């Protein structure tokens, strides 16, 4: 028979298991040995068959689905290749395979810095522990390819001692510190979302490709736009319109905090890692995926509606957001192309400057809504508000460009190119996809196997050191 007093102390020892896991061990298997339920569900992420109306784990070519993005991202990596994510299990592999990382045939080659690895692997935790964040970020992706091998896993979120949640990567803690908050003060409950906020957030590369989250002014689209404006920051100059653009990357956490679930204390883990019962025991399901593949545990503990109705709720919200988001995309595409036309007619920087500033802001708002894949459900109203403002700005930009055209003597419609498919659009902006794919193929065949060989060697050495009774200190170095 239980007494509450006894039970509460018992609870505290739950995971005070002594393991020999090194906190820097980046291999899921090394941790998984002690936690078979969590490991097994984690491993289920290898399965990428699930597909919902807009999302899921199947890789989908988003540029093919929506060729407008090719024009919007012209001049930037995302116009080459942009896929729907497949899940944590594939994080490293996807970085190697995307055309955005090009084909660096030797250490030091571009186009991307090592910073890209940051959110893809706990090997990064190990390297940063060793060399410091600044040093790591200042390397190239190709410099570190042989060091980064394990996809996101246990060491990304857990302390080895007691399996409590932790912020393993520096950027989030640095950001909060700038804002006067100490991550170590956050409660366990908050950590159930903050571990995700290490990566599922908008970021940019500062000096020497230092990873920064631009939250100093706040987390809405307007707040972050102000942050970038103040610093005169641009990710790239759009080759068609010549507007100084800002890229939004997955502001999932930021958008989520404006939604009703966050406001009611629901955390990311509640829906994406709900409890599961096996033999009457609860544990956290580590198959992180679309909750629509697991409605019973992810939603129905809190909502008694049928699966069909809950799915409809999600699709309804997504449909509404996509409807107005697409309107905004259409205007933006035309505006870039008409701006290009104005330059061709000899527009001056002075004539164009207002319009370009408006394009920057309109597209930023669009991207804030588009880049957060779950946002259409996490906080649909905030996205609708942001898109509404984006529509207003984009039309205003287009209006300004029309006025410039009139000044330049052009009236009536602007002749627009046919950019209605991924192929046509990429051709128009001068992307030679075949060439890029051929280079990538060479890289994957010639370079990556060498990276994997070095990794295998390294990891084998660790295991030997771990088994070696004479070895002192950490078996990882």
């Amino acid at each position: 028979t239980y007494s509450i007093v006894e039970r509460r102390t018992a609870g505290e020892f739950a995971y005070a298991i002594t393991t020999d896991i090194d906190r820097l061990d980046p291999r899921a298997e090394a941790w998984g040995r002690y936690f078979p339920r969590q490991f097994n569900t984690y491993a289920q992420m290898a399965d990428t068959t699930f597909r919902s109306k807009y999302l899921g784990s199947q890789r989908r070519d988003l540029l093919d689905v929506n060729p407008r993005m090719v024009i919007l991202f012209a001049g930037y990596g995302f116009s080459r290749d942009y896929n729907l994510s497949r899940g944590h299990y594939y994080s490293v592999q996807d970085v190697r395979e995307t055309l955005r990382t090009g084909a660096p045939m030797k250490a030091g080659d571009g186009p991307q810095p090592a910073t890209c690895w940051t959110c893809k692997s706990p090997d990064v935790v190990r390297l940063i522990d060793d060399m410091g964040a600044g040093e790591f970020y200042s390397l190239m992706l190709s410099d570190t390819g042989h060091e980064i091998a394990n996809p996101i896993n246990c060491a990304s979120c857990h302390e080895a001692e007691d399996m409590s949640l932790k912020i393993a990567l520096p950027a989030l803690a640095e950001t909060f510190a700038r804002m006067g908050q100490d991550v170590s003060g956050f409660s366990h409950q908050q950590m159930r979302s903050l571990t995700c906020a290490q990566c599922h957030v908008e970021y940019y590369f500062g000096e020497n490709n230092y990873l920064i989250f631009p939250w100093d002014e706040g987390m809405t689209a307007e707040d972050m736009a102000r942050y970038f404006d103040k610093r005169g920051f641009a990710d790239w100059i759009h080759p068609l319109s010549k507007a100084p653009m800002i890229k939004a990357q997955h502001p999932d956490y930021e958008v989520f905090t404006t939604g009703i679930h966050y406001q009611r204390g629901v955390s990311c883990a509640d829906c994406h890692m709900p409890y599961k019962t096996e033999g009457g025991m609860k544990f956290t399901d580590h198959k992180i995926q679309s909750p629509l593949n697991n409605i019973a545990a992810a939603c129905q503990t809190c909502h008694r509606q049928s699966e069909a109705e809950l799915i409809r709720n999600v699709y309804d919200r997504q449909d509404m957001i996509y409807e107005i988001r697409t309107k905004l995309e259409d205007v933006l595409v035309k505006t870039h192309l008409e701006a290009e036309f104005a330059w061709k007619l000899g527009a001056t920087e002075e004539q164009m400057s207002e319009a370009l500033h408006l394009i920057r802001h309109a597209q930023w708002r669009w991207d804030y809504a588009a880049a957060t894949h779950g946002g259409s459900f996490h906080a649909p109203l905030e996205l609708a508000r942001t898109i509404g403002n984006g529509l207003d700005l984009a039309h205003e930009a287009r209006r300004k460009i029309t006025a410039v055209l009139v000044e330049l003597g052009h009236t009536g419609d602007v002749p627009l190119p046919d950019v209605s498919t991924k192929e046509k659009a990429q051709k128009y902006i001068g992307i030679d996809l075949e060439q890029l794919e051929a280079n990538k193929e060479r890289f994957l065949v010639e370079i990556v196997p060498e990276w994997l060989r070095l990794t295998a060697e390294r990891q084998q050495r660790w295991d030997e050191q771990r088994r070696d009774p004479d070895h002192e200190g950490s078996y990882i170095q």
Partner: protein
Amino acid sequence: MAGAFTGLAAYALVVSNAVSYLSDNPATCVNCHVMGPQYATWFHSSHREHATCNDCHVPQDNIIKHYVFKAQDGLRHATIFTLNTTPDPIIMHEAGQRAVQANCQRCHDHTNQHVTSGKISYDQVQKGEGRLCWDCHRDVPHGTVRSTASVPHARIPIPQSPMPEWLRTITNR
């Protein structure tokens, strides 16, 4: 004067069936029809077979606390009911929530032993350090709507009237 007061208090206790607080039979809670929705929802829940009102609503860790709590709570409910100031909707007080949370954990300790939800106390919840069981299990056991609107036609045991038949006939005319 004091005698009259004691007498009145005794009358209120008897008529309002406050003494029934000392029993564990759910029907005694419904002695007050304001408890109707809670009874009806519990009656249709999976807990009917396993837990009575008091299994959840009264501390079970210590025999003295158990009865002190019951007496305090029972007196407050009886008083409020008698004074006709029942809040609508009724919402659990802090002491009540503390007891219920502990009772959920008491029964479901095994299930929750390896996850943090099993270790969260009411006080931690107040500090934003976790959630109550029924923040997730929102339907356990009373459903999500706490008013007669949720169960307008619910059948609950109608309390025996303490009024003599003849008096009722007259008053009801």
